[in-house]
Structures are given as C-alpha cells and as structure tokens.
C-alpha cells in the first residue's frame, strides 16, 4: 500500500502522518501539500497546491508516478478564514480536483476528514444525527458550506466510481492538549458570553480517540460517512463552569449581531453564524462507527475538556492562580 496524505500541516493530518511514519516504511508514505512535513519524519514530499488551476492534472501525474493506491485527504480548515474565496478553492474545488485525480489514477481507497458541524446546529435536527441525516448547515456560513460541498463531491465520486472505496469521517469538535482553535480559545478567556436561555449538549472529542478512529477506518474502510464522537456529551454551561469560567448570558439576537460586528472588525475569531453551535445541539450518533469499524471512543467529552485544561493551565505560573494567591494574601492582610 502506498499512501498519499494531504493537509499534513493541519492538527489531525499532522498527527496521522506522525503515527503512520512510526509504523510504516518511509518510502510508502508521501506527503502532498504546499508546505514540507518536518524533516525528522523522513517521509517523501511532493509539493502541490490544490487551489491552482491545473491541480487535478498535476495530482494525477503525481499519483501515477508514485503508484499511490490510498489517499488520506485532511486539507480542511478548522478555523474560519477571512479569505473565504481561498477556503472555497481549497476545500470545495480542491476536493473536487483530488477526487477527479484519484478516480483517473485508479486509487483504490480515499479517506476524507469531515466535521459533525456540517450537519448544522438547527432546532429541528434529530437529537442524535445519524450519517444519513441530510447536511443542512447555516447557509450564510461559508465555513460549513464549503465542507458540505466537499462531502457532496465525495459522495458523488463514490457513486460514480464504485471500485474506489470512499470513507468520510465526520469528527466531533476536537478538544485536547496542543490544540489551538477558535473554539478552544473560548476556554482561554475568563468571561464567556453564552446565548441566554440555551444550554445545548456539546461533544468534545479527545484527539487520541480521533487517531484511533483513523486507525480503525484504515483497517476496515467502511463505505460512506461515519461519525466519530466521544463517549458522552455534556452541557455547554456545565462545561464552562467546570473550566472555572464566568458565563454571561446574552440574548441570542444580540450575540449574532455582536459576533458579526466583532468578526468584521477583526476582533473575534469567528462570524456570528457560529452562535448556532452554542444555541442548538449537533450531536453525532456513534452507532455506525461501532458497528462497522468496531470503534468506540475511550474518552467522554468531560475527559477531553479536562485534558485540554490540564494542558492549557499547566501549573503555578497560570495567571489566574497568581491572582488567586494575591487575593488570599489580601484576605489575610485584612483579617
């Protein structure tokens, strides 16, 4: 098996690359990306930009030359991009080019990374989203729209080229050590605005579980989409309290408008439409992963949250702790 990997610079792509590099012959692994992987891994690297006009032809030549039979497609943005046009070129059009090249080169297996957020957080969703639930993200949210288009390309190529096995893993939001995203940064603040009168269940997936799921998928190659979710969800407000944050309820129309304003002025990391995801639940159902990949997450959402917090606030040097110590001295002084 010769494996090509895109998106090696992403968090999950990088982890998968490292894990495969530990396990496999170096010449069986190929990174196809705009940036080279860490030299220490010693894996082969072919530069390619999926957004350039003739990317599909270039990738096709490359796949043929290297006799690749397995492609792992991890080139997706977790954080919303200010350059929406570029994100669209990479995620939607880039995925189209990738599948076109894979189909033409006779690649046998393609694994694509996706997100449970692509289902969209809507009040009318079923409580547990199974893989056949239609994808209905908020139409104004380019971040989710591009990922849904990528999923549609994957489904379409899987239908037209049945000899190519296409597996799509829809990961719940990753949460754990070494992760820095727009949603983990919520937990870096002391005061967190939350939509007033809403407290959805959230799923936080430990990165170790995500890697196990990739392993399970590489062993079983189920056809179509599979949710990868943690063992148990938890309520959003409870999570904020466990993380010692101060949740401030804000009426949701204000939350949408204020986030949009802050995004437009460059203060916030995400546009207002993301408020959907803290207003309504989007819980993936893990039954298919269990049935077809024998995968079940080992961590709950709470464990993933604590793993992140332990990484983020490692010891006595955390600023919050210093403040507390100072307050304690004040108390003693006044007493």
């Amino acid at each position, binding site marked *: 098996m010769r494996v090509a990997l895109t998106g090696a610079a992403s968090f999950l792509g990088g982890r998968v690359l490292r894990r495969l590099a530990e396990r496999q012959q170096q010449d069986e692994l190929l990174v196809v990306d705009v940036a080279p992987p860490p030299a220490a891994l010693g894996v082969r690297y072919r530069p390619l930009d999926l957004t350039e006009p003739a990317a599909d032809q270039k990738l096709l030549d490359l796949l043929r030359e290297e006799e690749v039979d397995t492609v792992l497609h991890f080139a997706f943005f977790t954080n919303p991009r200010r350059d929406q046009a570029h994100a669209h070129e990479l995620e939607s059009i880039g995925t189209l080019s990738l599948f076109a090249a894979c189909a033409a080169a006779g690649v046998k297996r393609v694994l694509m990374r996706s997100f449970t957020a692509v289902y969209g957080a809507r009040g009318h969703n079923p*409580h547990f989203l199974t893989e056949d639930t239609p994808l209905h993200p908020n139409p104004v949210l380019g971040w989710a729209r591009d990922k849904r288009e990528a999923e549609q390309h994957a489904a379409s190529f899987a239908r037209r080229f049945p000899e190519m096995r296409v597996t799509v893993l829809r990961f719940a939001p990753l949460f754990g050590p070494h992760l820095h995203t727009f949603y983990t940064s919520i937990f870096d603040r002391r005061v967190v605005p939350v939509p007033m009168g809403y407290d959805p269940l959230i799923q936080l997936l430990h990165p170790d579980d995500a890697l196990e799921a990739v392993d399970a998928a590489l062993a079983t190659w189920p056809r179509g989409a599979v949710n990868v979710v943690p063992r148990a*969800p938890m*309520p959003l407000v409870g999570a904020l309290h466990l993380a010692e944050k101060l949740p401030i309820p804000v009426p949701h129309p204000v939350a949408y408008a204020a986030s949009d304003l802050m995004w437009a002025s460059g203060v916030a990391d995400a546009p207002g439409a993301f408020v959907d995801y803290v207003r309504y639940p989007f819980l993936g159902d893990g039954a298919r992963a269990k049935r077809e990949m024998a995968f079940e997450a080992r961590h709950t959402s709470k464990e993933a949250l604590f793993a992140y917090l*332990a990484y983020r606030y490692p010891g006595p040097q955390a600023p919050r702790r210093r403040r507390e110590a100072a307050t304690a001295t004040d108390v003693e002084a006044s007493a």
Partner: protein
Amino acid sequence: MSAGDKVVGIAGARRRRLHARSEGRVPATGPDLEALRARIDALEGELAAARASGAAPQGLLVALARIVQEGLSGFGWASLARTWREAYFAYHSEDVDDFGYDRKFTETLRPFFEFLYTVWWRVEVDGIEHVPEHGAALVVANHSGVLPYDGLMINLAVRHQHPGRREVRMLALDMFALLPFLAPMLGKTGAARANPDNGERLLRRGELVGVFPEGVKGVGKYYKDRYRLARFGRGGFVRLALRTSAPIVPVAVVGAEEIHPVIGKADWVGRPLGFPYFPITPTFPALGPLGLLPLPSKWALDFADPIDMQGYGPEAADDPILVNRLSEQVRSTIQRMIDGRLARRRSVWFG
C-alpha cells in the same frame, strides 16, 4: 447548625486553603481536579444533609453570603466565577445522560412541581396500575393548557402513585424544545424532542415514554374547543409502538384545559419570537408576568388498559389502515374517559 455557621465554615476552609497555596505548601495545578471534585462532593453532601433535615437547599443562600463576603475583600472575576460555579453545581450535576437529563436539577425543582401536584391542582389519579411495572411502554395523552404542565403531572403521577416509581420520559413539542429557557429546562428534566428517532431510542432502552399526538393543535386550542380532541397527528406514535412492540397506555387529562383559557390568539406577535401562536387569556398578557400563573383548577388523570402491540409485529408499522385504526382506537378511548370524567365533574375548581 444554622445557615450562617455553614457559610462561615466553608469560607474559612477556602481561606485556609488559599493561604496554604500562597505559601507554596499546596502545589497549585491548573483546574485543580481533585479540589474541584472535593468541593462538589462537599456541596452535594451539604445538599443531602439539608434535604434530610427538611430545610430548603442552601446553595443560593451560600452563594449570596459568599458574594457579600467577597465584596468585603475586593471583587474579581475569579471570585465571581467561583461563586457562580458553586451556585450552579448546587443545582446541577456534572454528568447528564445523553438526552441531557440532569437528575440533580430535577430534584431541585421537585418541591415546586410537587406543590403544583398536591396543592395547586390536587391531582386525582385513577388506574395507575395499568402502567406496566417494567419494560418499554408508550403513554399517550390529550394535550392542553398552553404550557406543557400536563406532561409534568403525568410524570409525577407515575413517580408517586405507581409501585415501580417509574420515570416517564416525555416527548416535547418542537416549539417548546426550541424556546429559550423552556428548551434547556425540558431537556434537564428528562424530556426529549418529539421525533420518531428519539422515541424509538428511549423505548428500545426500556423506558416509559409519554407523547401528546395532538401536538400544537391540542395544547393551543381555544377555550371554547376544550376537551374536544384534535386529530392525532398522522399516527406516528402508533408506528413507534408497533416498531418497538411497546404497549400503548391511553391517559385522559382533565383540568388542564382551564389553567390558561385561550380566548384569543395574536399570532403576529408570536411568530417573530419563535412561537407558532401567541395565546391571549383573561390574565395574559393583561397582567404581564403574573398572567403566566396557571389557574388552580382540579385535575384528574385516568389511565386506561394498555393496548398490546405484541400481536402485530414490527412490519405492521407500514400498514397505514391498521395504524389509523389503532390511532383512532386510542383517541376514542381517551375521549370516552374525558367525557365520563366531565359528566361526573360538578366544579372546575373542586372536582
């Protein structure tokens, strides 16, 4: 021990711990898991003790006293967050089930619910023995009263009068499950959104599931249409029961129609706010928030013989004629029980 002693006791312990930390005797780690757990355990113990001694839970009192005390020694986000957190976990558990059911939160609200059950509406229950002792079953009732109090009362009736002390997981209308405040409240007290998938999951776990097939047509009907059952949806609840072979227990709720008599509707007000309708009652919105107070009618819940689904098999769910017949059978059973109860009732307020 008085409430005041307890407050000082906790604050003193915290001050000692902080003092110890500032001197470097206790290693301060990030979000201190052990300390957090210990603190929550302590609060839980305190809550249990308070309940055992018959006193009201003191989480809020403790929190208020803490705020005053913190205010004396300088106020910061960290101390506010801590106070807020302790108040939160006095009423919420750390772990909920995958539908969001929070037992501790439900326990907190229980005294209020029980007041409604025993004092306000003096719920009279008949035929509770028809609810199966264990295993899945679908409790089907008529829906009325603008806000879903009827589901709550069915839940309490089964919990109190039934020998199995079972919990009824209600399937709440989408409109309730989408409204701010009501949505998390329903989820935390064990309700789930009304859709076939949720119902099937709960039934397959062997739970008792409650549904109101009339839906919004029932709960928001005019006062002049009271106790006339609306159409029972499209029989989805029967298909649910057939697929899971769960027996159906019809329930008639009498008394809920009078708690919020709807004399008019101003849908143009409700729509932009996310309500499918906006009820006008003699007290709402004329009296403002006071108009949300339900009237103290006398309630009766009648449970009928369960309708067994074992004989049909799951494939019968695809037979629309059978589904409709069973749906009509349940509807007429409930209507008959309601009519019987109304004929015997002499007063709306005293039964």
